[in-house]
């Protein structure tokens, strides 16, 4: 008899070759120039699901990137149903960002697959696709129904899936939702994320003179928009590293003693921090540990800023305008809209009369806290123990997955954040990669998870999905 894990081991090369094919498609959702590539990735997935024998389709909402939906309902009406969420879109990447290899030409070096999207999130959600394939093709049964919902806008606001969950959520009815889009510090110590930060994205434009001016002829008589932008950005933080926007922290749930003790169990010391970042000195809110700052505290980051001339050489101008892109990470119970109002009010308040400052709220998602006491969570713990080889610990993470809050609140689903990545995978940065060993361990863990879910008693469902 061939077990699912044996099948997966025997088809390891094939699985990776398929992942490479998906990674080659530059499905960058943040840049409209790549729209055809985003659609191509969606079509590739539908085709792939159909080849595995699943019912699959593209769900396209007006003006948005398609959702890929696939289902296997062969376990029968009485069986449990697992919803697998992932995203096939990726962040931008070019060689100039500092990549050693072409970001959309996956290569395997020293046990790692290098490519944009390798860990975020193509490599991670693909483990579940391959777990389903292994169970279907082996002599073991696939004991649960499985629905896949793979979106193409996770990196750009998740509008389509939010609308779909709101309007047609019943199509995603399930007993539990599993998401593999998070990471751990060390391969020996798997992690289940029990808190995700939310987010809010903004674009700011500072306008000064009506056109670029010669800095000799006019320098000293107009408030340079670059200087004004710098003055505004500076006033978004206090000298102690906290955010200076009035009302920003109003709704933040203070950490309990238990929370702080739990987070202290997985310390993040300055030595590890220095190795991971390469920065000269740690920074941030002094009264919180490094782990707390990224997991449990909100942040405001300037993710991009530009104005004036920055090509080769010099252009002696006072530019007409300057822009900044701002990303806030939010924690429970901050509301993105409220944060947007607070930031707008603050910027209007501090902007000097010599320039015009405009802020655009691009998108937002609230933070998520996950219940760790459920039977489905126990299924995930068992799956890591058997499939990965070690029991997981719980950690709150700094990143955001916008739709997770929607799965909880709109669909009432318990969500398991079963990440298979490493914190050092370089997601969003250059040389993103995914450990080959972790890809295969992930598949094994996903197989165990589907089997463990089948064993959860039916009576469990009445009490699940509640925070």
């Amino acid at each position, binding site marked *: 008899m061939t077990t699912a894990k044996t099948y997966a081991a025997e088809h390891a090369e094939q699985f990776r070759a398929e992942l490479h094919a998906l990674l080659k498609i530059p499905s960058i959702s*943040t*840049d409209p120039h790549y729209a055809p590539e985003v659609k191509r990735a969606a079509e590739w997935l539908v085709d792939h699901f159909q080849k595995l024998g699943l019912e699959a389709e593209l769900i396209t909402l007006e003006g948005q990137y398609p959702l890929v939906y696939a289902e296997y309902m062969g376990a029968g009406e009485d069986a449990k149903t697992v919803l697998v969420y992932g995203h096939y879109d990726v*962040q*931008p990447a070019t060689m100039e960002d*500092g990549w050693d290899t072409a970001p959309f030409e996956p290569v395997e070096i020293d046990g790692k697959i290098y490519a944009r999207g390798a860990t975020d999130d193509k490599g991670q959600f693909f483990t579940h696709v391959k777990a389903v394939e292994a169970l279907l093709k082996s002599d073991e049964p696939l004991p649960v129904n499985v629905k896949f919902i793979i979106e193409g806008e996770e*990196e*750009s606001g998740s509008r389509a899936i939010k609308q779909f969950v709101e309007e047609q959520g019943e199509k995603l009815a399930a007993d539990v939702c599993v998401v593999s889009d998070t*990471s751990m510090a060390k391969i020996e110590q798997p992690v289940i994320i029990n808190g995700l*930060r939310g987010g809010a994205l903004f674009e700011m434009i500072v306008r000064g*003179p009506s*056109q670029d001016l*010669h*800095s*000799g*002829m*006019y*320098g000293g*008589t107009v*408030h*340079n928009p*670059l*200087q004004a932008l710098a003055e505004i*950005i*500076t006033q*978004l*933080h206090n000298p102690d590293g906290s955010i200076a926007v009035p009302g920003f922290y109003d709704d933040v749930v203070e950490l309990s003693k238990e929370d702080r003790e739990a987070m202290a169990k997985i310390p993040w010391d300055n030595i590890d921090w220095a190795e991971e*970042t*390469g*920065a*000269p000195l*740690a*920074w*941030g809110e002094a009264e919180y540990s*490094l782990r707390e700052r*990224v997991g449990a505290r909100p*942040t405001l*980051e*300037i*993710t*991009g*800023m530009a104005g004036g001339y*920055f090509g080769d*050489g*010099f*252009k*002696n101008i*006072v530019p007409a305008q300057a*822009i*900044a892109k701002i990303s806030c*990470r939010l924690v429970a119970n901050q509301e993105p809209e409220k944060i947007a109002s607070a930031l707008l009010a603050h910027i209007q308040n501090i902007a*000097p009369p010599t*320039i015009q400052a405009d802020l655009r709220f691009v998108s937002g998602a609230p933070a998520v806290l996950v219940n760790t006491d459920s039977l489905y969570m126990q299924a995930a713990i068992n799956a890591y123990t058997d499939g990965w080889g070690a029991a997981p610990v719980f950690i709150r*993470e*700094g*990143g955001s997955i916008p739709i997770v809050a929607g799965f909880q609140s709109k669909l009432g689903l318990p969500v398991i954040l079963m990440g298979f990545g490493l*914190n050092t995978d*370089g997601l*969003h*940065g*250059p040389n993103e990669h995914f450990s080959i060993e972790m890809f295969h361990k992930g598949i094994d863990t996903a197989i165990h998870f589907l089997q463990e879910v089948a064993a959860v008693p039916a009576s469990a469902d009445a009490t699940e999905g509640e925070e």
Partner: protein
Amino acid sequence: MMTTAHKYAAEQSARFQEQFCDLIRIPSISTDPAFAEKVKQAADWIVADMEKIGLSAEQITMPEGRHPLVLGQWNGAGDDAPTVLIYCHYDVQPAVVADGWDTEPFEPTIKDGKIYARGATDSKVHVVSWLKAVESLLATEGSPVNIKLLFEGEEESGGDTIKAFVAQQPERITADTVVISDGVIRDIDQPSITYGLRGIVTMEVHVQGPQSDLHSGHFGGVVHNPVQAITEIIAQLHDENGAVAVPGFYDNVAILDDEERALLAESNMLMEEEWRKVANPPAKWGEHGYNMHERIGARPTLEINGLYGGYTGEGFKTVLPASAHAKISCRLVANQDPARIAQLVQDHIQILAPQSVTVSFSNVDVNAAAVVLDREKSAIKAAASAYEKGWGKKPLFERAGGSVPITYDMLKISDNLTIMGFSYKGGTAHGPNENIPISSFQNGINTAIHFLQDVNNT
């Protein structure tokens, strides 16, 4: 006053304008190495025209690999006649339609009596005006002075070649009188002579945080964002009165006396009017206690010319960027020493830099000090008379905000030096939709002819 040379210029005006447009079409952008061949092409064009009108011409490239200097000479006035050296530059700033141009920047377009193109006002109008003034004289009555035309190809990018040439072979350009022909006059119909120029210091500042871009979720809040750090530094470079907050920055600044403040006040209103037309920001800004003319011409500044870090393409890339960068320039007045100012600024930035980032500098350029010229010497007096006859109005005397790095070097050739600009501020030098009125080009030729005819008699 119509001399034979002026008649010739009037008859040839259509061809002169065609030639002007021909030179403009060559995108001689010296700040971007990708355009090096175009700069050379412009130099070749000038050499060919010089030879055609009767000058001996050559290109000088030193050090190797830089943009050529063009030197044209005419010694027909004889050994006893004085020599006038005229300096202009034929290189231009970068320009693409995306910067906000209404027309192709390197395809001259005529609208409302103005020629729109990059380089029209800064500074090919000067190059061609002098070439055509010399042609008009040599083709008719001859010139009473010997002429050297020295045209630079890298004024917009540091000017290493001309500096090296002046330092190493000054005997090849000895002259009794020097004209630096660049820059603007007060208005299209109101000539002015700039007797003060600000100097300039430029540098690039680099703020490095983490070794590479990081996920802003995983590391936001524990790493000092270099973009934030650079803004914190920049925000501290000025005080609340608009003054530069670098200690020692104003130490050697020459104080204006009451007589000069009165002279500058004469054109302050005109300057403010033009400022409202061209700059028009939501509100005035600047160093408290000084009027606009003084802020532009007599007070030093520190400007951020470029600032960038992280992802600024369409959409978002939620990274904590590894680094952030700024291009900074200081405009200097007499008697600030550029090297000292560059050092003060760098030292202060290092003091302001938090320990959570590292700061470095590159491309620090300290070659241009400020200049104030003697208004009583013959060069400026002849220029005033030439404007009055050629442009039709007495010139105002001004201190300008811009820097012409070469002035400092040209003063080594002769301190009987004048600056003669033919363009105007509405010409938006360095910005989009740069332009020059056709009348300014014609007035420029006529004024240049008068200057050469009369400089020896002033």
